[in-house]
């Protein structure tokens, strides 16, 4: 690296700085740079620097941002993932405007700042040569590059006469840290950019290696904290969560019948048996198909004792010659059973009565009510013509 020699002159006011810059340039010296504590307006033109085109870069980044957002969203919502959102068109440009705008701003801002750092060759950990430490405080530091012919002593004298409060001559090894504009991009910055590119690219091109992990660093939804639908109740209780896995009291499954809520009597009590009188049969009428079915069910489950003719003389009793010791109830024709409320009959069928056992496991709730309704219909069929004849 070449060694360069510089003459440094410090000014305390911009009023002296401007004439000094003019004079020095007219005298044919090359001003390396002027370091100031704040942006001094007009100094760039006085030094003959061209206007910066950083804002043009900003405009280009903005366009890139806009196109990226438009292209990205457009591709995703019309080609890669054309979802139907309430029947709206896939190409819903007005709804994309907010994000397109935000991306425009984001790309432009980030791009400009990075470009600014790159062209000024500044960044974290970058150390540049400083000719005078007070240049960031209250001095305007003019640095003149010397050639072989320059008489530094005379130049310092000239600066002093122009109002410089402090002058000195410095030799510095030439390099990017001097902040010259015509130097090519520093190798450090190129290396950093290359590093970023290589890391990001290699992160993308991991292939299938990433699939065979031993360590889950971001398990997505693999291990849910939520209660699993058919989880064992004990697991949930062990987790300290109160969850009884049962529907709320009194809830009825969709499509199922209204449950018979009266419990079986304790031995010796008839409380619930009597309470059952109040329960109304949810089935109010039977269609002919239903009647046929109810009749069939009656014959299968009831008729064997109560008889085909509802007279309590089924094959198991057979006028006392059957294996059954007591006479089953005469369902039609006996005033006791004609007057018996359907709820009470249901109780008997469900829980059993005297020697009759429970038929709850053979007949569903609906079937039981159907059979009861059917019996009631038979009772009515016998009793109604009677009342009719009486009135006649």
């Amino acid at each position, binding site marked *: 690296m070449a060694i360069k020699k510089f003459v440094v002159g410090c000014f305390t006011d911009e009023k002296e700085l401007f004439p000094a810059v003019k004079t020095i340039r007219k005298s044919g010296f090359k001003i390396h740079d002027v370091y100031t504590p*704040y942006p001094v*307006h007009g*100094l760039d033109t006085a030094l003959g*620097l061209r206007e910066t085109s950083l804002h043009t870069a*900003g405009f280009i980044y903005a366009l890139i941002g806009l196109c990226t957002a438009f292209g990205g*969203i457009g591709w995703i919502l019309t080609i890669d993932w054309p979802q139907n959102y309430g029947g709206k068109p896939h190409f819903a440009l007005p709804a994309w405007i907010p*994000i397109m705008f935000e991306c425009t701003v984001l790309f432009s801002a980030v791009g400009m700042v990075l470009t600014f750092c790159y062209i000024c060759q500044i960044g974290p950990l*970058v150390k540049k040569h400083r000719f005078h430490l007070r240049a*960031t405080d209250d001095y305007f530091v003019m640095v003149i590059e010397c050639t072989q012919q320059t008489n530094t002593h005379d130049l310092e004298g000239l600066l002093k006469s122009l109002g410089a409060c402090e002058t000195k001559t410095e030799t510095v090894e030439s390099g990017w840290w001097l*902040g010259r504009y015509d130097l090519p991009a520093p190798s450090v910055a190129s290396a950093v950019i290359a590093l970023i590119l290589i890391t990001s690219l290699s992160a993308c091109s991991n292939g299938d290696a990433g699939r065979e992990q031993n360590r889950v660093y971001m398990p997505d939804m693999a291990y849910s904290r939520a209660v699993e639908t058919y989880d064992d109740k004990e697991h949930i209780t062990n987790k300290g969560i109160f969850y009884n896995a049962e529907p709320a009291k009194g809830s009825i499954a969709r499509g199922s019948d209204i449950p018979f809520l009266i419990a079986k009597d304790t031995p010796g009590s008839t409380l619930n048996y009597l309470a059952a009188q109040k329960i109304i049969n949810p089935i109010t009428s039977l269609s002919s198909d239903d009647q046929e079915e109810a009749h069939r069910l009656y014959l299968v489950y009831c008729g064997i004792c109560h008889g085909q003719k509802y007279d309590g003389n089924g094959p198991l009793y057979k006028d006392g010659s059957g294996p059954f010791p007591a006479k089953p109830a005469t369902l039609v024709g006996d005033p006791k059973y004609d007057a018996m409320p359907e709820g009470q009959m249901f109780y008997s069928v469900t829980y059993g009565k005297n020697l009759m056992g429970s038929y709850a496991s053979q007949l569903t709730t609906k079937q039981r009510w159907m059979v009861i309704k059917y019996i009631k219909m038979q009772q009515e069929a016998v009793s109604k013509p009677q009342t009719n004849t009486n009135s006649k």
Partner: protein
Amino acid sequence: MHLKYESQLREPLVYGEKTYGQVTEDILKPIERKPSKLWYVGFFISSALLLFGVYSVYRDVTYGIGQWNLNKTVGWGWDITNFVWWVGIGHAGTLISAILLLFRQGWRTGVNRAAEAMTIFAVLCAGQFPVFHMGRVWMAFYTLPLPNTRGPLWPNFNSPLLWDVFAISTYLTVSLLFWYSGLIPDLATVRDRAKTKFTKLMYGIGSFGWSGSTKHWQRHESLCLVLAGLSTPLVLSVHTIVSFDFATSVIPGWHTTIFPPYFVAGAVFSGFAMVQSLMLVVRKVFGMEDYITIGHIEAMNKVIVLTGSIVGVAYLTELFMGWYSQNKYEGYTFWYSRANLFSPYGWSYWGMMACNVLSPQIFWFRSMRRNIFVTFFMSVIVNIGMWFERFVIIVTSLYRDYLPSSWSIYYSPSPWEIGFFVGTFGLFFTCFFMFSKYAPVIAVAEIKYILKTSGESFKNKITKIETEPLDKFVDEQKHAH
């Protein structure tokens, strides 16, 4: 960029006969000295609040947001209220640094650095709420359109909630870049004055090797100007998009086209109030009365009374439309749930009206605008009022929805919900204390830049010139460099 001559009618922006060196000395004093006891007390209080917030959030993440008292109708409660409130506060910083830069308002230089810092910290606080509202916070990255093997599964770009993700993250990034690029030259000043090796190293890293070269300054100015130009529509877009979260829904009280301008005005309103609160404390504690002058405070109070009145007009317009539209649901929300003092949440509506619309009218009086105690008191009142505004908008629209059977009797926050909010205060003030200790709270270079045109010494000189005959003055100006 600046006029060489500024009217004597304008107050000086910097008091006292300052030199460039004096400016550096004054502003860097808090960095170069040991912090005062008051700083330690404040820092530890805010750290304690932050820790409580961290614990509250830990509970939210571990047990789910059932920890919050959100219920079947009030699905957005304190969390979204706080989110909108914090985002709004951020807006003043960008307004000062960007819009006032474009409008060539010299007074912004005294307060822009701290206001921008406030913006960043406020947006940081705001961002916590929607993120933790997600419940499964480790899935937060699902909101980003990352190329993936999940289907592919992309976010819905037509959703205002996704616009929010983009708006808030862009806002944070751009504010941070803007703030930091302004900070670089000032950090270089600290670096070049540093005594210890460690400080030199740290500020050396932070100042990016800034040297103050003319070309760099030229680019820096260009950068700041374009960033200001970008931030101006950005800041308007951010709260507009936040308001879209509500306005694009069909909830009575939300479904209104007035929301974007009304939200932006409210955001600037609350933001300036927060800047006032902070700056009044900063100028007192760090003795910066010469840089953050009564003139600055007055200018900000003018913005407060303006934006407060805009917000007031918006409230009245909403009420009017609630009646004029003859829409049953709108009418119910505005006249029964809000404006009716005796409804369950009537107190919040009238609290908002009192704090946001009525009380700022006091700033029509010059003596009140220039009164520090009134200003501080009002800045707190305004922020309370703006919090109420968000609460009113969110909760009073939700708690009695279209289905009366699901109306919730009352929504009141759980300790962990409050703890989260308190925690963001901790985060905000912890960041602000750190910032005020380790970075110049006033933009040193920018103060030096206006010192010659708007400083008190210059004003005095101009006064002297003005008493001279006009011909002589013109002659002098012609021959100046």
